[in-house]
Each structure stands twice: as structure tokens, then as C-alpha cells.
């Protein structure tokens, strides 16, 4: 549960609900990060390596439950089938229209962190961002994806989710900027002084940083109730990871500077969101994760009692619409074709047949430190269960090539050496004619109406009765099928035996 994670309410707004038991808010502080209405946040879905990005559009508490309504952003990957035109590397798309996938209500505790999303639309209602804002932003957007009719558009709608679009575009003041270099300097000073300097996420104002004793530097210029919930007497956890080099490495050890003793201690390999230190080098790590505080290890030296902090998201589940099932028909099918065209599709063989998509994603993440989506594709009737096959889609052609090389160089999973190649397998188009074995009688004597009736009668399902020719013919088929099943069973058993004895021989 969340008892140990810091939380406090910010500005109150209206009261509501049938029994007037709901209190709406304009802001809150969670895990020492201040969130306000219309801030952009990350949310995790259980089992997925990539977080979702959304905008907080409503905050409230009803009885004991704290909830937020999140308006979603889509990554280019999620709407690949509907994308047209060039896409910037950190471009995302704001949901609009009506229907599944526009917005969801989630427990407040499922928020994993803050991010900056800047709108670069030229619409007059959108305050144009400064070049600096654009550079430091985690993501940019200028297009909207209508979830109702699955269309992409640059046109700014009047309202989204019942809100005037103005509040969803760039905020009037230049607030959400972070100047990491200055952060670092400030931090060094503070660390040296042995003081705690909470600098959670990117939404830290420049002016606040050098003021060491301020508990929550996220107190904004405007009239907000200052977040007094984090006085220095309490433990303030900051995430100060070692410098990050690898782009795809999603695991960063977080190091807080606690003053009190009681702290939540997590596993060291939790993912934590931060900002990269060198934005000058235009580092875009795996499209999503950025680091907020990036201190070199030497500044860590004076810090006592170093512990690793857990990420709230790892403990909670986000109840969200299952986005993978939205865009029918057969979203995977289109995704695969597209991925193959772009060279991002890899065909892996010799997996354990029990591995599902999540196991494969986990394997790729642990063994190669790469993120991907996967789908097991064995055909239950025909494929040999000794050899599990799957399609895996990576984020770029280069990454896919790299993965193939690495896997083929000797990745062994549970004693099974995997092998893989790029590209879709050639399969015939799904048949559109009648099944082999479904016979028709060509009879010229019938008039068209009789023919129609006969056609209908044939296609009605039924059990074959023993006194018909149909029955005899059907029995032929059942016999053939039984023989087939037996042949497959014998072959697959033999294969399993061969593999076992081979493995045994190798042991020696």
C-alpha cells in the first residue's frame, strides 16, 4: 500500500457529488512532486516496459479514494496505422473526439512522474513556445487523434473531453522549464552543505533551485498553497542516479538523501523517471525515459546512508482501457505489415511454447536491454510444439538488426538456443473459397430458386445422419483425420525425444 509515500493536497476547488462527498482539487503533491491540473504525467501499465503519457484534467477525492482523470496522448507507435506524413522523434498526439481511449479515471497513486509536453501548433489559441521550451521539452505535439473516427488532424478542436481547448494547450506563463545545468550546480552546493535539496521533476522553476532550505521547490509563482508537507525534518527522497550512458537502459539506481530513517526500500533495479543531464547533446533515450537529476558519482560521496527508492508505479496497477485492443480490425496484422516494411520485425524460433507475449518482452528486456512488442504465432493444429515461434517488433531498423545479431550469436533460454531472422514469413492469403472437402453437386436441372435453397440447406450446420451418403463420406474424413493426428503426435514425440537425448549427450 501507499502509506509510506508522501502525499498532500494542494489548492481546493469545488465540492460535488450526489452527497456532497466529493472534493475537487487544483493540485497535489505526491512523492514530493507537485502536480497541477493540466500537467502532463507518466502512468505505468502492469507488465509493459513503456509508460503511457497523459494530461491531468480532473483531480478529486471521494471518501477515501483519490482519483485523477487523465486525457491521453498517443505515441506514433500506437496509431501507426493512421499516421501520415513526417513524425518528429519526440512527437506525440493528443486524443480528441469521443469514445474509448479519450480519457480514463485512474487512482492518483498510479501516476509515476511528470513530464513536459509542449504544444507547437500554430493555432492562435496556443501560446507559441520559446525555442528553449521546445528544446527542453520531453515531448511535443501539434496534432490530434480523434478516437471516435480514428483520424489524425492538425486542426485544433474547440473542446476536448468537455474542456475548452485553451487549457489543454501551452500554459500562459513560461513555467515548465528546467535548466538542468543550473540544477546540477545548485545541487553540488547543497550536497556539499549536507542539506537536502528536493528537485524531483522537470517542472522545477529556475528561481527556486538555489534556495536550499525550501522544502518543496515546486511552489509556483502563482497563488498556490505552498506544499508544506515536506519539511526538512521529514525524509525527503530524491532520485539521484549515476550518469546514464546507455540509451536503452531503462534501469537506473535511484539514490535518495534521507534525513529520517523510515523509508521505503525498493529493489535496486526499479525504473525511475528523470531528466538527462546533457540536453545539449540532444539525447533521446529510447524515446521516453528522461532523467531529471543526473549527478556524477563524485558528488554522491558525501552522502550518507544511500538507499534506493522504489517507484510507486511498480506497486500499483493502472486501470486503463486496454489500448492494444482499440483499433480494429486485427490491429496486430496491420502493425506487423507496417513493421516489416520498416525493417523492425524479427522472427524468433525455438522458444519455449509456454512463453506468451509478456515472457518474450521480458526476455528481450533482460537479455538485450531493448524494448519491444511481441506475439507468439504458433498454429495450434500444425506447428510443432517443441519449437515456439514469435514475431517481435522493435523501435527501429537498426535496433532490430542489432537484436538479430545478438540473439544469433548465442542467446540460450532454458537450454534452448534461439535463432532468428528479419521479416515476415510468406504465407498464402487467407483462403476465400470453400474448404477442401466441401463438395458441391453441379446440377443443371435445378432452377435458380431451388439452387438457392439447396445452398442454404448445405450451409446450415447439422450432425450428419447415418443413413445418408454424406455420412459415409464424412466418416472417410474422420478416419483420415485420426490417422493425421496420430502421425503428428508420433513425429512431435520423436522430436521431443531427440532434443532430450541430444541435451543429455551434451552434458557429458
Amino acid at each position, binding site marked *: 500500500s501507499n502509506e509510506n509515500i508522501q502525499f498532500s493536497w494542494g489548492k481546493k476547488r469545488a465540492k460535488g457529488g450526489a452527497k456532497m462527498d466529493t472534493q475537487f482539487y487544483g493540485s497535489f503533491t505526491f512523492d514530493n512532486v507537485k502536480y497541477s491540473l493540466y500537467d502532463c504525467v507518466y502512468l505505468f501499465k502492469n507488465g509493459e516496459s513503456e509508460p503511457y503519457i497523459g494530461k491531468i484534467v480532473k483531480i478529486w477525492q471521494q471518501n477515501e479514494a483519490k482519483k485523477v482523470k487523465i486525457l491521453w496522448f498517443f505515441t506514433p507507435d500506437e496509431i501507426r496505422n493512421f499516421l501520415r506524413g513526417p513524425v518528429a522523434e519526440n512527437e506525440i498526439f493528443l486524443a480528441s473526439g469521443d469514445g474509448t481511449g479519450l480519457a480514463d479515471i485512474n487512482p492518483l497513486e498510479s501516476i509515476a512522474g511528470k513530464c513536459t509536453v509542449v504544444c507547437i501548433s500554430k493555432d492562435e489559441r496556443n501560446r507559441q513556445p520559446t525555442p528553449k521550451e521546445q528544446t527542453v521539452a520531453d515531448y511535443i505535439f501539434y496534432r490530434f487523434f480523434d478516437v471516435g473516427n480514428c483520424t489524425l488532424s492538425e486542426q485544433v478542436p474547440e473542446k476536448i473531453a468537455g474542456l475548452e481547448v485553451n487549457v489543454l494547450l501551452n500554459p500562459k506563463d513560461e513555467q515548465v522549464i528546467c535548466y538542468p545545468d543550473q540544477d546540477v550546480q545548485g545541487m553540488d552546493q547543497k550536497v556539499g552543505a549536507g542539506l537536502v535539496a528536493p528537485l524531483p521533476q522537470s517542472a522545477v522553476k529556475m528561481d527556486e533551485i538555489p534556495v536550499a532550505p525550501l522544502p518543496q521547490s515546486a511552489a509556483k509563482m502563482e497563488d498556490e498553497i505552498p506544499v508544506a508537507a515536506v519539511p526538512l525534518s521529514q525524509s525527503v527522497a530524491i532520485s539521484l542516479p549515476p550518469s546514464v550512458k546507455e540509451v536503452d537502459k531503462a534501469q537506473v539506481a535511484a539514490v535518495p538523501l534521507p534525513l529520517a*530513517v523510515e523509508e521505503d*526500500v525498493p529493489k535496486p533495479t526499479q525504473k525511475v523517471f528523470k531528466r538527462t543531464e546533457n540536453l545539449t547533446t540532444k539525447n533521446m533515450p529510447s524515446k521516453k525515459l528522461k532523467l531529471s537529476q543526473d549527478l556524477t558519482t563524485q558528488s554522491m560521496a558525501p552522502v550518507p546512508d544511500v538507499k534506493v527508492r*522504489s517507484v510507486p508505479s*511498480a506497486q500499483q*496497477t493502472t486501470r486503463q482501457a486496454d489500448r492494444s485492443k482499440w483499433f480494429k480490425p486485427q490491429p496486430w496484422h496491420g502493425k506487423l505489415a507496417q513493421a516489416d516494411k520498416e525493417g523492425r520485425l524479427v522472427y524468433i*524460433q525455438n522458444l519455449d511454447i*509456454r512463453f*506468451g*507475449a509478456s515472457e518474450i518482452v*521480458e526476455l528481450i528486456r*533482460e*537479455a538485450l536491454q531493448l524494448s519491444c512488442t511481441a506475439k*507468439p*504465432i504458433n*498454429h*495450434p*493444429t*500444425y*506447428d510443432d510444439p*517443441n*519449437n515456439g515461434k514469435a514475431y517481435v517488433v522493435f523501435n527501429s531498423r537498426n535496433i532490430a538488426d542489432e537484436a538479430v545479431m545478438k540473439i544469433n*550469436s*548465442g*542467446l*540460450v533460454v*532454458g537450454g534452448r*538456443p534461439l*535463432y532468428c531472422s528479419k521479416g*515476415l514469413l510468406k*504465407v498464402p492469403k*487467407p*483462403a476465400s473459397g*470453400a*474448404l*477442401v*472437402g466441401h*463438395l458441391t453437386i*453441379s446440377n443443371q*436441372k435445378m432452377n435458380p430458386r431451388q439452387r438457392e435453397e439447396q445452398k442454404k440447406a448445405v*450451409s446450415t*450446420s447439422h*450432425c*450428419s445422419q447415418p443413413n445418408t*451418403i*454424406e*455420412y459415409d*463420406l*464424412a*466418416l*472417410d*474424413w474422420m478416419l*483420415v*483425420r485420426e490417422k*493425421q493426428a496420430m*502421425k503428428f503426435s508420433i*513425429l512431435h514425440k520423436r*522430436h521431443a525425444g531427440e*532434443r532430450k537425448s*541430444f541435451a543429455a549427450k*551434451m552434458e557429458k
Partner: protein
Amino acid sequence: MATSDEQAHEDRQDIKDEQLAHKDDEQAEKEYADFEARVRRTIYIDHLSPLVTAQVIKASLAQCANVVSTEFIQNYTIQYEIPAAALVEVDNVSQAQAAVDLMNNFPFMLGGMPRPVRAVFAKPDMFPDRPRKPGLKVEFSWVKQGDPGYDGMNKLKGLARRQEAENMALIKNQLEEEKELAAQQQETLEASNSKYDMLEKLITDGDITKLAQHYKVKLGDD
């Protein structure tokens, strides 16, 4: 080594840690348990006509089971034309049993004759969207060039490839057998049909009585 105080503190933290991890595991276990329940009430139908839709399946099983959902299996791996197949979820296990029994005890025609469909109980690895199986360890190691066992691993890969080829050959063989049977049956059917047509013609034209007289055979109607 840390002091005993720190050690005790570490232990407390570890316990907390495990409790938190436990929650995650509980969630995964529940999800998988739900999945397994779904598997138990799903049947796998194959030798299915590509023309059959979910509606047709629902209607045809209505006599013994209420179909909740139908998922057709995509062919990604077989390079030949194969019959369709589907995972059909019904209300409960007894309905699933009833459906399987029905389709196994009698040749069941779905969308065409005379080739019947086949139904078996579904298994977890038939579902492409199955959730994470709790307890299934994803363990891996690297055996690269120069490592001991590298040759062995390569041989294993070769074995796997050979087995795949064997399997594909068997599939090809089966499909050809089926085509032959279908052709043969079509011939038989047409032959029977023309025989019956001929008989009918004789009766309606009255030629049958002439034939009967010629061969001195008594017709049943006399």
C-alpha cells in the same frame, strides 16, 4: 559489515520489500487464474471452412452451448493453404464438454459437407494473448563463439531446423492427402448423382416399365 542496528533495519526493509513484491505477484496470479478458467470453457475448432463466420459458429452451437466469443486463429507460419480454426469461448465448462462431445460423436457439418469439423478442449498455449504465467522463469544465458558448449548449441539449432523441415513436410503430405480424398469423393458423389438422376429419368419417362418387361423383372408396383 553493517552494525546490528543497520542490519535489523535492512531486514525490516527487505521484509517490506517482499510484501510489496508479493502484491504484484498476487495480481499476476489472479490474472492467470482468470485466464485458466477461460481456457477451461473454451473449445478449439479446426478443419473449419474459411467461409464460416463467428455468427455461423454461434448459431450452430446454439443447440448445446451459448457462445460468448470467437477468436479466429491467424496463420502466420504455414506456407500452404490450410483450413480455418477458431477458439470458441462458451458460458461454462459443461457447455464446452457438451459441444466437444457433440462434434466428436457425430460428424458435424459446419458451412459445408461432407467434411466435418473437429473440436477439442483449448490449451493455454493456443491463446496468442495469454497473460504472464506466474512461476514460469525466463532464464537465459549466453553461449558465444569460444565458449564451451558453443558447438553443441549450434548443433541443437541445426536439429531444431531439421525438425521444422520434417514437420513442414508432414503438413504438406497431409494437405495433399486431403486434396486427393476430396477429389475422390467429388467423383463418387457425381457418379452417385448421375446414377440417381438416371433412375429418376427412367421412372418419370416410363421407360422403366419397358426395361422391366425386357428383362422379365417384376416391378414393385405391379
